[in-house]
């Protein structure tokens, strides 16, 4: 029998903003421990929040072997990697004062708006250790400022949001970004009179990726239930489109290993490379079942069995800036959509509640509400322009994703 532990810890200070003022301070320090036992091709598991008795947890895990959940795979071992991405971002004791200073500037400089929501400082760690010598540890610390804004004269619940998430904080840069968005918001502009326009997303926006969540799922792919089933090795997207399953913390706060202890070279895995479908995302069970590459996309609840999870996606950036990708055209930057989805055959549509006319460097003005539509094979095929090499903000690691789409006023 092999014992294994999966331990997550989150420490967070969260300041809540309401009506442009701090109204609460929340502290969190929660450790969750999962204990797994592997025996004769089966897995047992148990979990605890906070303090626990180890022998009790082991006994509970052993008892669940009766469920006869098969786990007949090589258990990861003899691997020790510790990665610590933490740094001193801001003095925890000065967070309230810092946010109050930032809000006081906004109350004065952007007095047409109310601000609400969160300023969080998060310490997060994940540890996976077992009796076979596996010792993986990821620790990170990041700050996120997410401010919902609402124009005081507006009849909407909210009009948009500003902020960033990353490992850096600088009040001047944060205010510059916020003012850039809000000043553009106050300048209403018309939608260019063209049916097809370059549409620009922040790469952290999940909407363009939701088709890949379903159609690159190893189960759907392997069982011929995906639009991409049977297309391994075939080019169906743009030459410049490479999609990674990203476990690289340099790009986003994400552990470099999955819940089964799989560590990929460079902490990522190419699912689509230069337009060619290479693999769906898989864990050990799915990879074996459908004879697919193992991409290391297992996830788990702290007290459960490792199972196939949805990975973080990252598109390989181009050698061009957003301005160069737009090549002199004006783009439609999508800040806020209301839903949006794909049909089974890949057709896409979404209403954009807040979009900006974007020249590749700055927002020119606020556009009327509009519809965007396309098809997944066009979005990442003939209509794909690329991901910028430049970041959306000095405080963020996200970039601009640009593709041509049909755009019309609602």
């Amino acid at each position, binding site marked *: 029998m092999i014992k294994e532990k999966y331990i997550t810890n989150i420490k967070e200070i969260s300041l809540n903003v309401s009506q442009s003022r701090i109204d609460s301070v929340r502290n969190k320090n929660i450790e969750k421990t999962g204990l797994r036992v592997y025996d004769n091709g089966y897995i047992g598991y148990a979990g605890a929040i906070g303090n626990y008795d180890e022998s009790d947890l082991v006994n509970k895990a052993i008892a669940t072997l009766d469920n006869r959940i*098969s786990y007949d795979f090589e258990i990861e071992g003899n691997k020790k990697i510790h990665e610590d991405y933490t740094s001193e971002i801001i003095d925890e004791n000065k967070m309230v004062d810092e946010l109050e200073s930032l809000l006081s500037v906004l109350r004065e400089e952007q007095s047409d708006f109310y601000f609400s929501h969160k300023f969080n400082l998060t310490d997060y760690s994940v540890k996976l250790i077992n009796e076979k010598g596996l010792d993986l540890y990821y620790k990170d610390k990041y700050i996120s400022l997410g401010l919902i804004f609402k124009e005081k004269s507006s*009849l909407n619940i909210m009009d948009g949001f500003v902020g960033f998430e990353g490992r850096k904080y600088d009040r001047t840069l944060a205010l510059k970004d916020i003012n850039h968005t809000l000043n553009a918001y106050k300048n209403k502009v018309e939608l260019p009179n063209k049916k097809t326009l370059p549409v620009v997303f922040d790469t952290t926006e999940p909407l363009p990726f939701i088709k890949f969540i379903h159609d690159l799922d190893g189960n759907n792919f392997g069982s011929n239930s995906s639009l991409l089933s049977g297309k391994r090795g075939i080019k169906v997207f743009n030459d410049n489109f490479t999609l990674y399953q990203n476990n690289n913390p340099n790009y986003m706060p994400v552990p470099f290993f999955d819940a089964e202890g799989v560590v990929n070279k460079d902490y990522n895995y190419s699912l689509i490379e230069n337009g060619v479908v290479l693999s769906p995302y898989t864990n050990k069970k799915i990879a074996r079942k459908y004879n697919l590459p193992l991409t290391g996309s297992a996830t788990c609840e702290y007290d459960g069995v490792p199972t196939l999870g949805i990975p973080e996606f990252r598109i390989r950036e181009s050698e061009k800036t957003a301005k160069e990708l737009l090549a002199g055209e004006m783009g439609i930057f999508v800040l806020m959509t209301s839903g949006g989805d794909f049909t089974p055959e890949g057709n896409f*549509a979404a209403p954009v509640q807040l979009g900006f006319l974007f020249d590749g460097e700055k927002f020119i003005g606020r556009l009327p509400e509009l519809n965007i*539509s396309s098809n997944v094979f066009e979005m990442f095929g003939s209509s794909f322009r690329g991901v910028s090499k430049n970041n959306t903000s000095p405080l963020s690691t996200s970039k601009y994703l640009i593709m041509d789409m049909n755009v019309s006023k*609602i």
Partner: protein
Amino acid sequence: MFKFPEGLYTDVRIEDVYETKVIYTVGEIEESKVRTYKAAFIRIFDGERWYYNSISNVEDIQAEIDLLSKYANPNERIEENPVVKKFQVNKDELIKFEEDDIKKISIKEKQNLLREYFPLLEEYEFIKHWKAYYVDRKIYKEFYSSKGSSTKFDNQTVGLAIKMQFVEGDKLLSESYQKSSTNVNGLKGKIQEFRPFISKCYDFLINSQPVKPGKYTVILSPLAAGVFAHESFGHKSESDFMIGDETMKKEWAIGKTVGRELLSIVDDGNIDGNGYVPYDDEGTRAEKTYLVKNGLLSGRLHSTTTACYLDEDLTGNARAVNFEYEPIVRMTTTYIEPGNQTKEELFSEVENGIYIDEIKHGSGMSTFTIAPSLAYYIKNGKIAEPVNISVVTGNVMETLNEIDGLSNETEIMSFILGGCGKMEQFPLPVGFGGPYVRVNNLNVQ
């Protein structure tokens, strides 16, 4: 029970949770677990600012209260603070799920509820992949405050869901079958409904065609209507967005006409299911709140803070997704009240429209969106051929005025997997429902 610090308002919420989750993938067991935990959330208010802490060791509550109180500034007149004055003081114990206690049912019996469906699933070659889920949840919530509140209640929900991937040639469809109840017996004997559901999905798979985009009269099923009510109007009724906002106060004045006279939308935490919250996470008793009554704006949803600032009555809608979060204004069970037409009459009056039967998701702010999974044309008053639709959208306030017909029976339901999301707090269990609802001039793509 606890020694609360002087000069501060303090409350403690304790959650004692039991959950089961069983998952089979194409007949093979993937997960079968019972999770139990007891944890707490502590709030302290000094009249200026709130201080929160969530803890997983409930034996430390007193120590955490003492520690947290050090951040606050004691105020000897705290009891005169208008928010503190507004807090209800309730002493009650509402335990109603002891008889059909899910904790007393073996995991094998819970597994067998799913296994009953396997032979049927294996019968159909066009179901290429499937996952079957059984989930249950029992929670005891205790609430204590420095004003003297002491409440305890339980809630229990059970459900099963089968997610299927249908394939025929190059045609694909993802669809889920879901059933929910407050006890295991409520899930038994449902298998006869399953075969027709599969037949419906297969018909959709082979016959559906892309929709011709445009504006249509749309009839929403009770499921779609419930999500529409939740997304389009329910979130707008959460009054935290109104505090201090004079524009919104004027725009959302009680008594304003927001829809036609046939339309009434209700939120009620007293209804069994996911949205059963007899006392909210501030210890406030649940109320039946008309958000819209006969087309007029009639009420909104409140926490104690929002009710205080807007000088309105408490409604029992301060909810947290779990012990890690503070309560914020949320819905409980939100539904549209029935009208006076039969379902058949409602359809018969539509010459060329769309019927939305099942949906993938919905969302809404000034514009709402519903992403249908099973939808059909309506032609000459009858449901006709199936259509693939990405999204159905409309402006919320315009759409409420476009509702011109309701069937005469409301269905209340709960999603088994997922729930309501608001900012960082997801998924909150909620109930929703409605009759069949006819809406004109929706944008279909």
